[in-house]
């Protein structure tokens, strides 16, 4: 691996940086057979540019739903989400897709690589969608940056879990997003592999100056972030600085 892992990013004060993400009064209610379920019940949250925020909380507290709303993959029932100075709650699907293409990278617990595409093709896709001229070269560089320079032509099924998540990291960082949303990125990995992946994630984030929102159950992992936000029952319970 040709990445030198550095210590966590330096503390970034919320107040000292303009907010990249500004959430106000966010509610998310979804219909269910037993009646509507209120998943998010009035979230207020600011994430400054370059900040690393760990979101923790018990299962069902609304962590992943918050991430989905911030990524524009779930529509808020009410409230406001401003991302990079733009209100996203009223945007249509294509505008949200453009926003993701230009501003947001996502890393999932289950990797979500396209199984029929090679590692290189998986990483190329967001660049190609954005019309980047040298998509393949940049994807190759990104894969090399996560230590997978020798795995370009491999399909996801031919890679280990740790390698798949590194491909996902390369894919998320390749378009140089301003905001990286990571949802339990080590949840499907063993401890040692998970640590290595997280070291890589933080290193890449630091190099690119990317703002991070990391959802995790792991308090040690959350502690590597500059701030921890604790969710409980769809509300922010605690927003202390790490």
């Amino acid at each position, binding site marked *: 691996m040709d990445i030198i892992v550095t210590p966590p990013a330096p503390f970034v004060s919320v107040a000292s940086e303009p907010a990249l993400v500004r959430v106000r009064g966010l509610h998310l209610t979804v219909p269910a057979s037993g009646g509507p379920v209120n998943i998010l019940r009035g979230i207020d949250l600011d994430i400054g540019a370059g900040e690393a925020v760990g979101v923790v909380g018990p299962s069902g507290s609304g962590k992943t739903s918050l991430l989905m709303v911030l990524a524009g*993959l779930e529509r808020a029932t009410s409230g406001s989400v401003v991302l990079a100075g733009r209100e996203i709650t009223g945007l249509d*699907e*294509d505008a949200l897709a453009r926003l993701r293409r230009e501003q947001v990278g996502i890393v*999932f617990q289950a990797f979500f690589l396209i*199984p029929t595409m090679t590692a290189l093709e998986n990483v190329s896709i967001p660049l190609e*969608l954005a019309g980047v001229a040298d998509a393949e070269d940049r994807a190759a560089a990104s894969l090399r940056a996560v230590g997978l320079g020798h795995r370009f032509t491999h399909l996801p099924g031919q890679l280990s879990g740790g390698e798949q998540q590194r491909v996902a990291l390369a894919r998320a960082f390749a378009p140089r997003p301003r905001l990286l949303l990571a949802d339990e990125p080590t949840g499907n990995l063993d401890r040692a592999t998970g640590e290595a992946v997280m070291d890589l994630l933080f290193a890449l984030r630091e190099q690119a100056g990317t703002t991070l929102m990391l959802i995790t159950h792991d308090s040690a992992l959350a502690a590597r972030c500059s701030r921890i936000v604790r969710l409980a029952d769809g509300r922010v319970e605690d927003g202390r600085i790490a």
Partner: protein
Amino acid sequence: MLAFRLARRELRGGVRGLRIVLACLALGVAAIASVGTLREGISRGLAADGRRILGGDLEVQGGSEALPDTLRDWLRARGAAISDVITLRSMLVAPSGDRMLVELKAVDGAWPLVGQARFSPAQPVASVLGNSDGTYGAAAEALVLGRLGLHPGDRVRIGNATLTLRAQIDVEPDRVASPSIFGPRVLVSAAALPATGLLQPGAIAEHHLRIALLDGADPAALTTALRAAFPDTGWRIRGTADAAPGVAQFIDQTSLFMTLVGLTSLLVGGIGVANGVRAWLEARARSIATLRCLGASPRLVFAVCLIQVLTLSTLGVLAGLAAGAILPIVAVEFLGDVLPVPPQTGVFFAPLALAGAYGLLTAAAFALWPLGRAMRISGAALFRDAVLPAMARPPLPLLAANVALALALVALTVATSPERGFALGFCCAAAGTLLLFRVGGALLTWGAAHIRPPRRPWARLGLANLYRPGSSTPLMLVSVGLGLSTLAAVALIEGNVRGQILEQMPAQAPSFFFIDVQNDQMPAFRKLVEATPGVSDFKEVPSLRARIVAVKGVPVDRVHATPDTAWALRGDRGLTYAAAMPADTRLTAGQWWAKDYTGPPLVSFDANLAKGWGVGVGDTLRVNVLGRDLDLRIASLRDVAWRTLGINFTLVASPGLLEHAPHTHIATVRATPAAQGGLLRAVTDAFPNVSGISIAEVLQAVAALLGQIGTALAATGSLTLAAGALVLAGAVAAGQRRRVQEAVILKALGASRAQIRAAWLVEFGILGAVAGLLAAVVGTAASFGVVRYVMHAQWAFLPGTLAATVAGCVALMLAFGYAGTAAALRAKAAPLLRNE
């Protein structure tokens, strides 16, 4: 036992993945079972109703020669009831002067010997046809009344006679045995016939004598005795089993065609079975890997899967059989009037057993290969993503079993077909088509992977979807290949036939055929016709009727003729004579006789019939002309251009023998549309015994018939396409989960809906274009083979039809692709992206 127990437990969990298998088999089996049941019903109807259809126990056909009274006396002496029936063509003239060609049937007082005729207004036959108020009566089909604006009580002219039209014919019991071909039926009394002046020597007429035997009398014994008592007469004697040979042949050929169409849809369904089993195994692969981890042997896994698939297949086949048994009963309700004989309805074992055998063989033949791959799934596969090895080949014994099943399917198809060569050709064509589409799919995959990727990301995505691992490109092409090829072939054959009959012929064809022009009428007839303005191209030839008695010394009932030429051995054939070779004659063998030839009688014969009967130049045909047997040696064979609608005769004899026999003339003329009505009126007023056949009306009738055939062909071709669509839907559905997931991931990575839609349009557009091109190739080849070698007609390339076929294929693929795309685009991202 363990395998059954495990299979039962798995089946308990539902059969969702195998529903497509069930539907594909049910559709194909239902088609074959329906056709078989309907055919059996009609055959039984023919057998059970043969006496009514024939109008007696036996019929003696004397051709254009009246049957002698000695025959009647001989039959009466044996207690038989007899009835004379004479059929001929004539013009029927309404009081308004309007006229039309009709098929006249003159019957005696004993008619009908079997069954009942019904008229509107209801009255007995004797009242309708008998002589009252100084005129004989007549009855006509509704078409005649409608066309000429006639009503019961109107006076009509037939030949020289004036008759009173007393009723409309509602039921003519022996209609099938003596069908009306050139026009609608008009019924008159035989006693009225002399006054019409139609029965001139040499006139084209058929004399029939219907015979009803005493109870217990043996028709076969009577036939033998009759032949012995009246040797060398050339009469044709037929019994109830042979009441409607044309119908039986038509039903045989139609059911062969329909069975092959059904088999095509079953083969398409077989692909659906293979796809369905493959998709089902993919979904079950983890369970199978778990079983393997727990100690199940590959053989046990195979047995468990096989039992489930066969159980479902049997259910599909049973559903198809149930539909196949019920549908004909419903069809008879709606098609009763269209069918030539009322079919018997019921559940017939033989056709259902055959359809069931086809279904089970198809299911086994197509399921075995994918099932064999289940044996290759190892327990270790649980720890991999791609659990089902895509390229794994089943073990050798299974491959051998698969080949044996495929051969058994071919053997069953060929063995149960009335035309084995054709059936074998069909099997080869079907296998070739499947192979072509499979190879086409492989080439497309290879090509998509090797061409320079386009710059646009959506085009790259769409193109890449064609060759990525697990891509369904070959599967989809094969799924629609047979169906689309069948439709293309049907469209091209229909286009060719329609084009030749309706577009090419009228330019060369005469406007009228005039038949039964007597020798002494000919000078006046020619003068009248040639003096009529707008009339040209007058041609006439002598015309006699001849019955083939023996071919190369073999009596006609023992001649082995090909199915497409056997018809010419029945009934009378046209015979003419000529010294010089007529213009536009194309000899294929032998030579025309010298103009002054005076030797033993020679004949120039139809080359196609000669081939079907196995005769050539130098062989002898014995024909009966006006009751006399003549031996004609074949001097030459001719390509008879029936399609030109000019004067064509099966038999053209050398001069010297027939000039002095009583005969008539056939004449053709061309007339401008404005002159046609006047010409017909002038000729048939001046020569009441002459009948005029309007080619325009014949073409209209042919067009209507072609329209019906076209609809039937399109409907049957659509059945194959419906099966293909079902399979395609299954193939799309099988990959839909992957597509939805891909769409969601792409959306999460910033792809707009337009980009995703465009990618899939590229993918399915290319698939449709390739499918269309391959279908066009197969359809062109198949239509060429059928038009050229089965229909013996000229084949024409029809680019418009082909373009429409390709466009239809692209549209079909895009429709299916878009259905999948739209569903994937509608899918919500969040539920799929949440942690599993």
